[in-house]
């Protein structure tokens, strides 16, 4: 007979209780494994990671591949290498004009819209009924862009528009707000500023609410007047918000074209004066079926936006964002 006897699992048990037993560590259950610190965060992130991979990363990679091919979406893509990039950057008679229009639009909408939103947010923060004012300024943001375009077409009509009729009463001339090649893009900028004003004001209002009131009290004790409070306290302390507003506005401004599409019936006229790169890309892809070239334009625009955003970040960091 053996001095040991098997247990239920077939293992040989020691014959005497004095023998040491080193049991195997308990095996982790699946639940414990998934709940571990290593796995759990990834598990929670996985839906977003999968979403990002499917809807952002894969399309980006595919678009880059398409930009190296000639593809009309009807027949198989044909490899052309960097030909589209070469054409767009060196031969295309329209691309650089559209890029200029894009820069003008983005810079114009920021140059006018951001300071205006900041000043109005500051003014309404100190006024009564600020919620009402904010709501009123927010309304264009939630209005359908097609409705916005039609409203402004009526307002800016050369002959019968409200604006030119008002100018007529004052004995002034009637500019072709949307029909003059030199004015049309500026008009679109102004409409876009009007649309975005409420959104930017809301961001600035949130930024203003975060400024400690004691800063103003200290400055007042030092004899600062209202203008000095705004320029020396408000603006510097709003710098992080300003940076955020500038970057998001610039990125959206550089890729925006919906308003131009609706205002000009998709033509980007007159004389391509409102054809921004986004609209040009849209026409190229869905009207001309040049998916490859349109993808190349998208990548060039992406590079431009990336460079400008990096410059903005660097400039603003040097300009005091980090200091706050």
């Amino acid at each position: 007979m053996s001095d040991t006897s098997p247990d239920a699992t077939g293992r040989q048990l020691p014959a005497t209780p004095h023998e040491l037993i080193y049991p195997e560590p308990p095996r982790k259950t699946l639940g414990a494994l998934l709940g571990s610190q290593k796995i759990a965060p990834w598990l929670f992130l996985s839906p977003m990671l999968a979403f990002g991979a499917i809807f952002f990363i894969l399309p980006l990679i595919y678009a880059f591949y398409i930009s190296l091919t000639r593809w009309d979406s009807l027949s198989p893509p044909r490899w052309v290498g960097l030909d589209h990039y070469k054409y767009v950057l060196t031969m295309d008679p329209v691309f650089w004009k559209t890029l200029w229009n894009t820069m003008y639009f983005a810079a114009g909408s920021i140059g006018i819209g951001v300071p205006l939103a900041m000043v109005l947010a500051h003014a309404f923060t100190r006024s009564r009924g600020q919620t009402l004012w904010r709501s009123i300024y927010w309304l264009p943001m939630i209005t359908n862009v097609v409705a916005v375009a039609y409203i402004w077409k009526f307002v800016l009509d050369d002959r019968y528009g409200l604006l030119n009729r008002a100018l007529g009463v004052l004995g002034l001339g009637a500019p072709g707000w949307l029909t003059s090649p030199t004015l049309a893009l500026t008009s679109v900028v102004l409409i876009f500023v009007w649309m975005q004003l409420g959104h930017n004001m809301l961001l600035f209002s949130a930024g203003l609410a975060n400024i400690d009131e004691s800063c103003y009290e200290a400055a007042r004790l030092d004899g600062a007047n209202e203008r000095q409070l705004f320029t020396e306290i408000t603006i510097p302390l709003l710098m992080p918000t300003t940076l955020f507003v500038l970057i998001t506005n610039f990125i959206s401004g550089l890729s925006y074209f919906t308003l131009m599409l609706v205002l000009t019936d998709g033509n980007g006229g007159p004389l391509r004066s409102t054809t921004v790169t986004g609209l040009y890309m849209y026409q190229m892809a869905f009207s001309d079926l040049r998916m490859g070239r349109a993808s190349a334009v998208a990548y060039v625009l992406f590079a431009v936006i990336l460079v400008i955003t990096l410059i903005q970040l660097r400039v603003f960091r040097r300009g005091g964002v980090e200091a706050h």
Partner: protein
Amino acid sequence: MTRILSKSSFAAVLACTTALTGMASAQDVKTIKIATHYNDAQMAPLLKCFDVYESEHPDIKIEFQQASYGDFLQTILTSRVGGTSPDIYNIYSIWVPQLAAAGTLAEPPADLQDWIKSSYGEGTVGAATINGTLWGIPTELSVYQLLYNKKMLAEAGFDAPPATWDEPKKIAAAITTTNDQGVIDRAGYVYGPSVANAVHVYYSQMYADGTAPYSDDLRSTNFTSPESIQIVKRQGELFSEGITSNTNITDDFAAGTAAMMIAANWNKAELQQNFGDAFDSTVGVAPIPNNGGPAGTMLYSFLWAVDSTSQVKDESWKLLRWLNEAQGGASLSCTGQMLSDLGALTGNLADLSAMDTGDSFTAPFIAATESGAAKSQPNIWQAAENDRTLRSYIEQVWAGNMTAEDAMAAADAEVTSVLSEQQ
């Protein structure tokens, strides 16, 4: 027991047979999907015909899909990428070169091609033909002519529309007025903001002058020909001399604030609605002014086409022929009835003769079609892109930024470069 078993067996066999028969019937029914840019209201006569066809052909089910004109090409592309493309499309003829080159379209059977060639006008068959291959059955036909406001011309002392190139400017100048801010509030002549408002007008004027805008092989242009330069130069003069402007557009004609424009027959419904009882006494139609030669203009067409990947190609062509031939003693085919209700024209000769086209507005368009004066819009490669390029250079002349010679030379270079891409 035996009787019970027999009854049970009989019931089971009956149930199985019924189920199998049902399955077989469901499998035998073929679905034909038809996509057009016409909406449900416009399609009403055709939708009724679909019901009749389904009742006469129990093995066929017809599904209608509508997509707006502006989104139609994108809809085709998306549906093909997604593998859900319709079997039948109603497409604009200028889309055909790319769709055909990409293998999207199926060629009609030989007997159907013979029927099309014998049943449709030459111009419309040409509009559906690319490099000698016929790609479908022509449907809606649009022809360009000079539309003029009889009352405005009469008020300015002109009792007849312009016939030669020198006249429109003179007449238009006499009609044009400006408001207190210097904006033209009554234009003698108008263009419009769309690509077609400039390019189709230019093509029509080229044909009126006896010159095709493109070479016969559609690989080069005639934009720099003396006729072309003159046409664009004259257009520029209308702007530079304050007779028209970007403010004044084709919609103004319907509003009664513009005296002349070159436009297509499909404007009839809107003009009738706007002018009401005064339509006949106000709106006149005349051949496009030229240098005194034979009349000429441009027409474009839509066509029924079948997708090359369709599993029901034969059934689709049969359905299309049925829709385009008068049925059951009717005077018009189903397609003809729909176009007639829309106030549109058709290239189908039988339908055309049965339509009420004798009114003073429609008759000149019909005359241009039947006489052969109306030439098919050239189905060039990348038509939408080239037309947009051409419009941009014509606009440069309107704005006074470029001379007609420079603008048309630049347009020629760009368009020819694109045309050279075709295989």
